[in-house]
């Protein structure tokens, strides 16, 4: 046996093959030590690795189960009725099963990201090699999630493979526990959920690090360009190539082809969902202009297809409607699938020539093709679009009903109500039909923004009325005006930015970070996003967007015709509006929190997840909002935030995630932490009150956001600012002073200066606090002290004198 050192080697006779020796027991620690980094207690934790931390969180934030179904249909002992928390045939009760269901959805989401990550990593290593350095901007801590979780500090693409191995191994372990006859306790499923969520952020991070490094995407760039967005920005007189999905791997070949063949002006390249975002990030790190347009989110898919505008549709993976091929076929639009996750039963043409494929599809011999060879794809997609454009023009494809038809269809309606009952949001379709009889189509138009274009109304109608097409037709004017701007995803927050802003966040003088993610399933249309973001930005919160929310936000303009992306700068500073990027860029949001702990507070990050999470829990006033949370991915993203102690509010549809994590502010013993200086217990404010919950309307949401940014570490200035916003937002949107405001007051300087006297009076009168009126000081009353040098922690071992 020969001896070698850890490092890079090449191997005889296998040219261009390199191997990095690192994946061996002890190697992580060794490598880390060489770099002067210590590895914490839990590199690559297994399912039980962070269970104690989870139990700490879960003892304060209890799972609240709201089943989507009273039954379990996992195995053939069932289906079992678990109603009333009964046990099924395997002995599992409703509670544990709901936790299991939630786990299943969370790991499904995590797998979607991890599967994406593995795919694009494999693809990019194929193109750039394992030694391709990771370069995502001016940061040393390039992979905060990865490093905190696995202890690995990745430097090259190759390093990321080991990270993916870990994620996949753990996801398989978690999926195994879904099997009948595995875990029996709800609380342990809950811990597994948090584990799954944590893994999700690692998987997402790997995806984005890889693509940013290789595809010329903005690298922590606050000046990332503005991108056209909206159905209205498409010039339908040109050939239109529409891309749908999340994984930009193959699309880059299309973009290269268009660029190399100078087709950019001759056609429209448009995207739906996160692929769209990543298309606009592609090759823009040197100030180049984005080469594609964004249509919008999942909720625009059916509308866009049914408009008949696309000449070719390319789909990759995730959030792609299952009926794309069927719908496209009806309008003579060829569909190309490009990823093993979605193949639609189409014939694999990967080894055929571009010419043959174009011939077959343009002659409608087959409705589409599977092309896994991206060079072939790169040529076929744009050339086919150009060809189809002419063919389809000549065919005179008529997509939407005419005005007359609109009226006739309205008349056909028998007001049976099936459509409204089946509409996920129970939109008032019948009234629109009624008005339509009199050629008043404004009620259809009103539905446009609220309608997620799911098509369920069409499926339900006994009269076969194409309800969705009617809404779309009636909204043509609105749609034409649907032109906005979105800032292209900038990537992660850089280390220098953290150094600058960290202190403000921890002390609360920047009132908080509001991260808005998720998509489509808004209770009341997309405009609410705009209203929330604007309100919080005006109040100096940092608003971070990603994925579909980032798109929806770009769709709205204020009175001056400005989008929020134009109105607010995009640095990591109070009052700034940041788009980190696509779905997988969500990892940069948690990454930011980790960075604050690691860089600003200098906590050890590698393999030290618990301490980092504890730090974030007690000091970083961040709240996630997934207002339109529809997917399993949103559930896993939220769970990953939760394990770091970051609370998330979802819209009312999010109640269908089956479980929330909500604390009981009235239960005093739940709101205590240790002071790390001496291990003594200290009371803390009941904020965040929850780790995951729903809100009913944005009016309810806004004060919730402000309140739940409050943290034990706030200094007086910080607390005062946060409290002011909480009180003001309550008054503005709920019409009253919140009942519990006084619970957050530790001393008079926590009170807003302008109202201090008034508030002191209330404290004295309504709450019996003793006030020294001469010095305007509170003498007694508060449940807790203000002590900026206290070191709040939930983890006993982190206290002085402990292990």
């Amino acid at each position: 046996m020969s001896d070698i050192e850890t490092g890079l080697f090449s191997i005889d006779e296998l040219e261009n093959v390199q191997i990095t020796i690192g994946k061996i027991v002890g190697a992580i620690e060794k490598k880390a030590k060489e770099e002067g980094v210590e590895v914490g207690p839990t590199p690559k934790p297994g399912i039980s690795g962070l269970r104690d931390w989870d139990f700490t969180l879960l003892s304060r934030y209890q799972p609240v189960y709201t089943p989507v179904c009273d039954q379990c249909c996992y195995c053939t002992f069932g289906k079992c009725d678990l109603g009333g928390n009964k046990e099924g045939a395997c002995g599992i009760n409703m509670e544990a099963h709901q936790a299991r269901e939630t786990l299943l959805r969370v790991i499904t989401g995590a797998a979607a990201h991890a599967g994406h990550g593995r795919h694009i990593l494999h693809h990019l290593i194929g193109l750039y090699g394992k030694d391709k350095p990771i370069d995502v901007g001016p940061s040393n801590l390039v992979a905060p999630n990865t490093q905190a979780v696995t202890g690995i500090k990745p430097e090259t693409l190759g390093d990321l493979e080991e990270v993916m191995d870990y994620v996949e191994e753990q996801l398989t372990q978690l999926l195994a526990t879904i099997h009948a006859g595995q875990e029996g306790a709800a609380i342990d499923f809950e811990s597994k959920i948090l584990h799954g969520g944590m893994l999700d952020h690692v998987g997402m991070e790997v995806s984005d690090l890889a693509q940013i490094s290789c595809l010329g995407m903005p690298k922590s760039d606050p000046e990332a360009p503005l991108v056209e967005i909206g159905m209205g920005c498409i010039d339908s007189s040109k050939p239109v190539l529409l891309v749908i999905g999340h994984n930009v791997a193959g699309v880059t070949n299309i973009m290269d082809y268009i660029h190399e063949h100078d087709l950019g002006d001759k056609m429209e390249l448009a995207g739906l969902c996160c692929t769209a975002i990543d298309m606009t990030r592609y090759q823009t790190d040197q100030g180049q202009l984005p080469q594609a347009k964004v249509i919008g989110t999942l909720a625009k898919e059916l509308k866009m297809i049914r408009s008949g505008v696309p000449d070719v549709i390319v789909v990759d993976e995730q959030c792609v409607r299952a009926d794309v091929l069927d719908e496209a076929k009806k309008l003579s639009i060829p569909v190309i699938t490009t990823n093993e996750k979605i193949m639609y039963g189409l014939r694999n043409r990967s080894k055929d020539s571009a010419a043959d494929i174009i011939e077959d599809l343009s002659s409608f011999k087959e409705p589409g093709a599977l092309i896994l060879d991206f060079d072939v794809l790169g040529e076929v997609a744009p050339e086919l679009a150009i060809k189809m454009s002419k063919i389809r023009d000549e065919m005179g494809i008529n997509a939407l009903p005419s005005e007359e038809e609109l009226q006739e269809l309205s008349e056909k309606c028998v007001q049976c109500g099936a459509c409204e009952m089946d509409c996920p949001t129970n939109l008032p379709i019948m009234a629109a039909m009624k008005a339509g009889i009199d050629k008043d189509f404004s009620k259809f138009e009103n539905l446009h923004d609220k309608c997620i274009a799911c098509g369920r109304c069409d499926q339900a109608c006994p009269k076969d009325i194409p309800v969705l097409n009617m809404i779309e037709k009636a909204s043509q004017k609105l749609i034409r005006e649907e032109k906005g701007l979105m800032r292209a995803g900038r990537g992660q927050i850089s280390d220098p930015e953290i150094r600058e802003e960290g202190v403000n966040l921890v002390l609360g003088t920047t009132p908080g970070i509001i991260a808005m993610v998720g998509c489509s399933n808004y209770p009341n249309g997309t405009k609410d996003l705009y209203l929330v973001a604007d309100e919080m930005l005006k109040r100096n919160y940092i608003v971070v967007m990603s994925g579909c929310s980032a798109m929806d936000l770009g769709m709205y303009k204020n009175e001056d015709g400005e989008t929020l992306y134009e109105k607010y700068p995009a640095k990591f500073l109070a009052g700034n509006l940041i788009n980190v990027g696509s779905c997988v860029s969500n990892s940069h949001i948690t990454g930011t929190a980790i960075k604050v702990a690691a860089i600003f507070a200098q906590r050890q990050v590698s393999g030290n997840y618990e301490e980092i999470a504890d730090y974030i829990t007690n000091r970083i006033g961040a709240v996630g909002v997934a207002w339109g949370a529809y997917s399993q991915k949103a559930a896993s993203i939220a769970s990953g935030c939760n394990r770091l102690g970051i609370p998330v509010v979802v819209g009312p549809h999010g109640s269908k995630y089956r479980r929330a994590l909500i604390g009981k502010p009235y239960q005093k013993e739940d709101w205590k932490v240790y002071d790390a200086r001496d291990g003594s217990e200290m009371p803390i404010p009941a904020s965040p009150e929850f780790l995951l919950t729903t809100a009913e309307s944005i009016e309810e949401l806004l004060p919730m956001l402000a309140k739940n940014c409050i943290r034990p570490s706030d200094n007086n200035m910080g607390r005062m600012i946060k409290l002011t916003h909480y009180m003001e937002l309550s008054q503005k949107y709920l019409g009253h002073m919140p009942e519990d405001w006084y619970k957050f007051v530790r001393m008079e300087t926590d009170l807003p200066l302008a109202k201090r006297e008034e508030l002191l009076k209330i404290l004295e009168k309504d709450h019996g606090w003793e006030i020294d009126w001469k010095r305007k000081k509170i003498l007694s009353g508060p449940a807790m002290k203000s002590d900026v040098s206290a070191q709040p922690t939930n983890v006993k071992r982190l206290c002085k004198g402990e292990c």
Partner: protein
Amino acid sequence: MVDTTKNTQIYTTWGRNVAKPVNPNVAGKIISKAKRPLLVVGSEILNGDHLLVEKTIAIAKKGIPVAATGHSITALIDKDIEAKYINVHSLGHFLGDKKWGGLDGQGPYDTILFLGHKKYYLDQVLSGLKNFTDLKTVAIERHFIQNATLSFGNLKQEVHLEALDEFIENL
């Protein structure tokens, strides 16, 4: 007399336990007999007919304390009724806790009345109560709320308002 039990059509099922359709007079009597009722009002009262707000206040005036969820509180302030804001999901959590003192510190509730909620959202919240508590829940919404213990069926708006009147009479 309005018959609110006829149309109980549903789009999807949760399982075999489905709300019993109830008529307004019966619902009214059940509430008036309850030891410790609570009316949970959602923000949809602000989106429907303005009469909904009036009816809500009328119910509250009969001495039933109100949990105002979402931003429904904006319509209930200064109306000389006992109404407090609370998040409905939190409320669902607390209602299942025998140690919770209630909105007023007077202890737990036994019968919960719902009005003014989004159908899908209320059904979810009630799914939790149905499966994990023994509270009696009564939905007097325009829609059949299948996860309540008792519920009105699917009603036209005008019939709903009528039904509410009858309900109030019977309180």
